[in-house]
């Protein structure tokens, strides 16, 4: 198939449909409106159902119902809307239901702004909702990758019975890039025997539930969830390592910010400064090992985390670097986007300081 120009939001929506997603429940919010809008047109064509919910709270609970009924289902929103979904997400994680949630992040806090940001990293990776649970968080840095990860997200969700988040920003959602829709590698997916379909008199009743009133049961359930999370950490962690060979400075950046960092790396290269990039593709599970390995290398002088936030991923980078190399941070917020030039300048400052 020839590559076609697709807008990120629409590409994500089409990728979902190609992955067999037939139910979408959402609520409008900039800058992700093209996802529900596209779905409203395409879902009926595919015999699926698009429904505009009365709110984000309702949308995530419709997702809960549809996911528990065995459907491939998705919702999308942007930061304030994702905050409203936190209770529902915690329920979905607690009831072990598979679904895909897209967050096209915008500047916060509060109503904030509508320009690109990455300030929902904590919320996505550390649990914005209550209780101990995790989402698999996928952070595409191009429209093509958004498509590929969306397609896989449904499989990951089904394989592990858990919610998967695609975390992008206004740039990913709004930009157009060439896209090829590819087949995803087939996974061995378990049957959804737990789903509610009506018993048809053929099996015991299925119950979708996250209530464990006996603390011992509740703890057992938590342990079960975390055993699963351990397995995911083993199987699904993804990272791109870029020009790490001999790098003095190692960037850690994800999503669109990572692309900007790559520009900066190329500029630095021209100026004779070797820099590399560790780009987490799964924000959770976080690629601690890559950073640990880089921290061990003699050539690496320091890490520089670049984010469109006040430095939320820095925690994880510090945990991984474990004091072996300094961890610096450069960030822009509120919809401001870091420039390659500013990043280059940061590096020079750091290397000046390190030398």
């Amino acid at each position, binding site marked *: 198939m020839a590559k076609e120009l697709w807008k990120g939001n629409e590409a994500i929506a089409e990728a979902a449909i190609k992955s067999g997603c037939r139910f979408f429940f959402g609520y409008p919010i900039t800058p992700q409106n093209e996802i529900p809008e596209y779905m409203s047109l395409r879902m009926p064509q595919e015999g699926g159902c698009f429904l505009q919910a009365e709110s984000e709270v*309702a949308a995530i609970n419709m997702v809960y119902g549809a996911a528990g009924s065995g459907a491939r289902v998705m919702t999308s929103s942007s930061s304030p809307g994702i905050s409203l979904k936190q209770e529902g997400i915690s329920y979905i994680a607690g009831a072990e239901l598979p679904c895909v949630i897209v967050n096209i992040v915008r500047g916060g806090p509060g109503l904030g702004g509508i320009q690109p940001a990455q300030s929902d990293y904590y919320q996505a990776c550390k649990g914005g909702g209550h209780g101990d649970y995790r989402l698999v968080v996928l952070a595409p840095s191009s429209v093509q990758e958004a498509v590929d990860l969306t397609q896989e997200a449904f499989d990951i969700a089904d394989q592990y019975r858990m919610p998967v988040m695609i975390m992008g920003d206004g740039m990913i959602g709004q930009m157009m890039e060439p896209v090829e829709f590819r087949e995803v590698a087939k996974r061995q997916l378990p049957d959804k025997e737990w789903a*509610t379909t009506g*018993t048809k008199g053929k099996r015991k009743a299925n119950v979708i539930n996250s209530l464990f009133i006996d603390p011992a049961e509740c703890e057992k359930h938590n342990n079960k969830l975390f055993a699963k999370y351990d397995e995911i950490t083993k199987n699904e962690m993804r990272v791109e390592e870029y020009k790490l060979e001999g790098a003095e400075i190692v960037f850690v950046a994800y999503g669109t910010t990572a692309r900007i960092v790559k520009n900066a790396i190329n500029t630095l290269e021209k100026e004779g400064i070797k820099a590399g990039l560790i780009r987490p593709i799964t924000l959770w599970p976080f690629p601690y090992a890559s950073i640990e390995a880089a921290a061990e290398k003699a050539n690496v002088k320091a890490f520089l985390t670049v984010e469109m936030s006040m430095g939320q991923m820095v925690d994880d980078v510090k945990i991984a670097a474990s004091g072996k190399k300094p961890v610096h941070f450069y960030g822009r917020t509120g919809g401001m986007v870091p420039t390659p030039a500013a990043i280059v300048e940061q590096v020079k400052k750091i290397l000046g300081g390190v030398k």
Partner: protein
Amino acid sequence: MAVIFEKTKALTDKTFHYCPGCTHGIIHRLVAEVLEELNLTDNAIGVAPVGCSVFAYDYFNCDMHEAAHGRAPAVATGIKRVHPDNAVFTYQGDGDLASIGCAEIVHAAMRGEKFTTIFVNNAIYGMTGGQMAPTTLIGQKATTAPLGRDENHAGLPLKVSEMLATIPKAVFVERVSVHDVKHINQAKKAIKKAFQLQMEGKGFTLVEVLSTCPTNWGKTPVESLKWLQENMMPYFPLGNFRTPEEV
């Protein structure tokens, strides 16, 4: 000997956790009997709320979801859109449906979602220990209205059925009670009708059932039935508020 009455198979054998004399149990039974009589048990998917009936999933012998507080109508929407041919119902308390879940029930009605809501109005938050509900009567004491509900402070009790009856796609809305055998029979009829209309694809159907909470009302079960009749029924008149025009 012919069996005149026995526990329907649409209920599991589990003993209800409800307090002695709590009419949640009667309402469960009615819903279950209707499912069985309409041959829907194997086809049904129910949604339990957060409230005293949170464990409803242990009692109904059909597939069930436990929904977040107030969100049962949204959950049921998700279910019914996936399984349009199944019988889908929510079972919700007055705190759940009329307070936190107000937007969800209004919008399920507006969209004409084809499921049935059993709305158990006991004028109180049972599970959490007797706080004021939107349906708590004027002067009625609650743990968050220790001197009784004051209309100047907290308004007048919300008449959910009357409000929803203004919504055209809420095709069947009826208020019933279970304080005596006659009314129990009528309640069952209304629930049956609601499920029938659902299965005919007519639209959203709701049966509001006046119910007791002896524990939080601070009354014996028998006194409670009387209190319901004397205090709730005058403010929440029984009757049908909407029914489809028959052809």
